[in-house]
């Protein structure tokens, strides 16, 4: 027990030392984390003191904290980190201790999980999925009374692509061919350029596809991946897990989180001068956590940059259907590349899409794909091989991905209701984005860029020196300190900016725009009140 406590204290000291001398999160710092200390920010240990036994300090067991893969220890993922843990405990406690808190519920604004906050699924999609799950429904006459005609029709068409209508069978490791055909057609309809079903790999959400590419690209710490800062921490985590180096490029907050090619070039050259072989560039468009939608010209510059420098372009486009501003439009990187005249032999591009976002928000289904273009066939074989070790992605998710890429069309039975659901969700998101953005901008010392797309706001808080000192005294990062105080005062869960990366000395947090409209006023009020009293307490 004693050794554990010493380790724990050591961890806290190491962490605060990092805060003092390296204001950036560990995925930006050059040294790997020492094995013996574990960041308290990630220690869920506080909940399980009773389970602490001699086994934790017994070095005779083969698998202990000291002996597990150091890459596991190194990687971090703040979206479901310390703050969420505290929130879950509060939520438990609220059940029996309602009066102890100035709020009556926890509102999770830490994660882009729309349906957990009341967003409904698109009815047509779920009708089709239900019919595919229990295909014998299609043989019953009563079914016509409960399901729309076009959902029945679509289910038949999908099942025809699956031998024996067997949705419980492993499919082709890239996903069911007929569904890939539909997705390729959807990509072509979106972009105006052809897509090859053989370029598509259906995966359990977009995240496993990202992991596959990182595995392929990274052989050692000498291999680097250019990532935007701030970034969605899947990238930093997967680079750490696969033993590579993250090469940061900073998005410019002053210009709406714009991407400067000159900065990209500078970071690339600096990395190369240190002996790092930079393999790829990650671009998240629309951005997460930053929400910016890239201008087409910017995208052209990026494509040209990748071509010139021999980088694989990893285009995370999971928020392609979340654009809220009339002056911006989503253009896929594939479209931009092809419009520039670049074909298969000119540029290596991997585009990621998911069923988790957009207006469908089907996170729990785990559906997504990557479209892989511009690789030689021997490389393609290796990608296929890796996909085959896991056999295939879940069939229901594959079906949903095909529905997302080919939703009801004008004239279809469900078209009107589908469009009403879709437009309702998207216009509500735009409204909530604006309301929250305005509310944040009205706070003292807070500036917030508009959410042009995606599902998040990433306000910057100008923390007074007193607050920073108070945070350090508590051995917490200043933004985490603010977020914890916010949680305890309002029940709202957000993620500290250090989880995403930020310019050292600046503080942010990421908040989703996803709570239902009727909850937004209360959130705004509580946030405003909290911020005022926080500033009253810490103002210089």
């Amino acid at each position, binding site marked *: 027990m004693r050794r554990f406590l010493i380790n724990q204290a050591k961890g806290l000291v190491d962490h605060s030392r990092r805060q003092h001398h390296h204001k950036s999160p560990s995925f930006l710092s050059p040294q790997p984390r020492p094995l013996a200390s574990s960041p308290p920010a990630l220690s869920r240990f506080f909940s399980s003191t009773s389970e602490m036994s001699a086994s934790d300090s017994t070095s005779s067991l083969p698998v202990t904290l000291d002996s597990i893969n150091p890459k596991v220890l190194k*990687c971090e993922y703040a979206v479901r980190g310390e703050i969420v843990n505290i929130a879950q405990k509060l939520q438990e406690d609220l059940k029996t201790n309602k009066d102890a808190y100035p709020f009556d519920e926890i509102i999770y604004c830490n994660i882009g999980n729309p349906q957990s906050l009341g967003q409904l699924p698109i009815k047509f999609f779920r009708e089709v999925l239900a019919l595919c799950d229990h295909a014998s429904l299609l043989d019953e006459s009563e079914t016509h009374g409960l399901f729309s005609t076009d959902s029945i029709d679509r289910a038949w068409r999908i099942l025809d692509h699956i031998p024996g209508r067997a949705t419980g069978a*492993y499919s082709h490791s890239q996903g069911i061919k007929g569904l890939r055909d539909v997705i390729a057609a959807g990509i072509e309809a979106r972009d105006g350029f052809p897509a090859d079903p053989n370029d598509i790999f259906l995966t359990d959400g977009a995240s496993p596809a990202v992991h596959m590419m990182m595995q392929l*690209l990274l052989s050692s710490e000498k291999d680097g991946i250019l990532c935007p800062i701030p970034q969605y921490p899947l990238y930093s985590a997967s680079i750490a897990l696969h033993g590579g180096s993250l090469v940061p490029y900073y998005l410019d907050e002053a210009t709406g989180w714009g991407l400067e090619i000159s900065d990209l070039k500078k970071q690339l050259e600096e990395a190369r001068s240190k002996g790092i072989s930079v*393999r790829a560039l990650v671009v998240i468009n629309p951005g997460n956590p930053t929400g910016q939608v890239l201008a087409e010209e910017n995208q052209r510059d990026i494509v040209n940059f990748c071509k010139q420098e021999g980088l694989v372009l990893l285009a995370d486009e999971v928020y392609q259907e979340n654009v809220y501003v009339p002056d911006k439009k989503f253009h896929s990187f594939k479209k931009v590349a092809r419009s520039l005249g670049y074909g298969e032999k000119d540029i290596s591009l991997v585009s990621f899409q998911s069923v988790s976002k957009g207006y469908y928000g089907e996170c729990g289904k785990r559906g997504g794909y990557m479209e892989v273009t511009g690789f030689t066939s021997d490389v393609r074989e290796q990608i296929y*091989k890796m996909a085959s070790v896991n056999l295939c992605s879940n069939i229901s998710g594959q079906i949903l991905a095909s529905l997302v890429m080919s939703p009801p069309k004008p004239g279809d039975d469900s078209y009107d209701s589908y469009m009403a659901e879709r437009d309702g969700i998207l216009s509500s998101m735009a409204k909530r984005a604006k309301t929250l953005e305005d509310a944040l901008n009205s706070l003292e010392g807070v500036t917030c860029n508009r959410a042009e797309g995606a599902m998040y706001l990433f306000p910057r808080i100008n923390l007074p020196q007193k607050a920073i000192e108070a945070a350090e005294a508590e051995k917490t990062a200043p933004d985490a300190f603010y977020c914890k105080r916010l949680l305890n005062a309002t029940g709202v869960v957000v993620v500290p900016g250090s989880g995403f990366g930020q310019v050292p000395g600046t503080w942010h947090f990421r908040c989703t725009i996803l709570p239902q409209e009727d909850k937004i006023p209360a959130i705004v009020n509580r946030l405003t009140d909290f911020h005022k009293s926080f500033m009253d307490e810490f103002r210089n």
Partner: protein
Amino acid sequence: MALKALDYDTLNENVKKCQYAVRGELYLRASELQKEGKKIIFTNVGNPHALGQKPLTFPRQVVALCQAPFLLDDPNVGMLFPADAIARAKHYLSLTSGGLGAYSDSRGLPGVRKEVAEFIQRRDGYPSDPELIFLTDGASKGVMQILNCVIRGDGDGILVPVPQYPLYSATISLLGGTLVPYYLDESENWGLDVNNLRQSVAQARSQGITVRAMVIINPGNPTGQCLSEANLREILKYCYNEKLVLLGDEVYQQNIYQDERPFISSKKVLMDMGSPFSNGVQLVSFHTVSKGYWGECGQRGGYFEMTNLPPRVVEEIYKVASIALSPNVSAQIFMGLMVSPPKPGDISYDQFARESKGILESLRRRARIMTDGFNSCKNVVCNFTEGAMYSFPQIRLPPGAIQAAKQAGKVPDVFYCLKLLEATGISTVPGSGFGQKEGVFHLRTTILPAEEEMPEIMDSFKKFNDEFMSQYDNNVGYSRM
């Protein structure tokens, strides 16, 4: 001149090294032939529904209702769904925080993990902690997560049975670890001799490898053997003494085709052994909805249960799981249903019991038909499939065939399997994909083709095999492609 972004040479070596024969050369050739119009019988992967096994009705009803919860509000829903399926759908929906479309806890829905823990407790007679059970997108993902935790570099060795299911070899390659093989004894019905273990470990250690973990697949894949209680005790004692974490792949625990050795979980044996073993051996046990009599491969549902891992390690595993956000919720519900199926008295019980029994009894019969069928073929010897879903006959290739294979640039069992495929449409996986003793050849097939088609398939195989043997028995040094 533009720099090449990613070519074969600059790919991660570990990716290039990894092999997964189950969907490798034979499968790709079979797919090609299928596209050309040839009838192919895919026996390369344990994929029951692809070979005609029907899904169980009750779980499909429940999950369909969970997919489309608005059905539950329709007054006519009772015409299409029995009342217990409706009740169960409501139950599982209440365990979620937003239905199938919301990310769950990264470890899986707490309510489902509780049901899994209760199942384990009923099965083994010992308590199980839901906090130490993580649901995953298929058992394979769980295996990868645990091995990723254990393997630090190529100095770390993982004991893996030979023959093995190549998920293990492929994952160890990808993670840059070292596979330490221990041979199962074909003459003892693929039994596990601890002396083989000792030898393998000693050899690995003499090469400077730190042996960290041991994999057992029980019932075995591809070999099908069911470990005896005594054998399991030996293994657990060995792991205790040698400080190895035991990875117990128990995905075939419901596929048992003999009565002498019923399934006993590694956890039960460990707990039965008492201290110091029960609190001193680290164990991770894996299970799935893909096998058994459910065969729901396409759902991607699995779990692992951790025993005696330090809390801080469990936290790190949780952290890595959280990066992938959550396992798919539909499959979690399938898992809940699998561990708490309809009970006697439930409306759907009779149909459920009938469907389940039908499948298991047929599998038992097919295991026998296939073993006997192989044993009736010239130069083929086949151990009985005690469990799992596969038959792994030994093919005694005559020197002439081995020579012909060499000239064709193929490993001998690959050569044989390709010829078998072209002649009969039967798509198998060569034994070299699983590992085997030097100079001994096998193939793996599944026992999954429909029972009524089995006799024809075995006849077709026998005809091909016996002709092949005649051809190459007399043609030493003469090769034909």
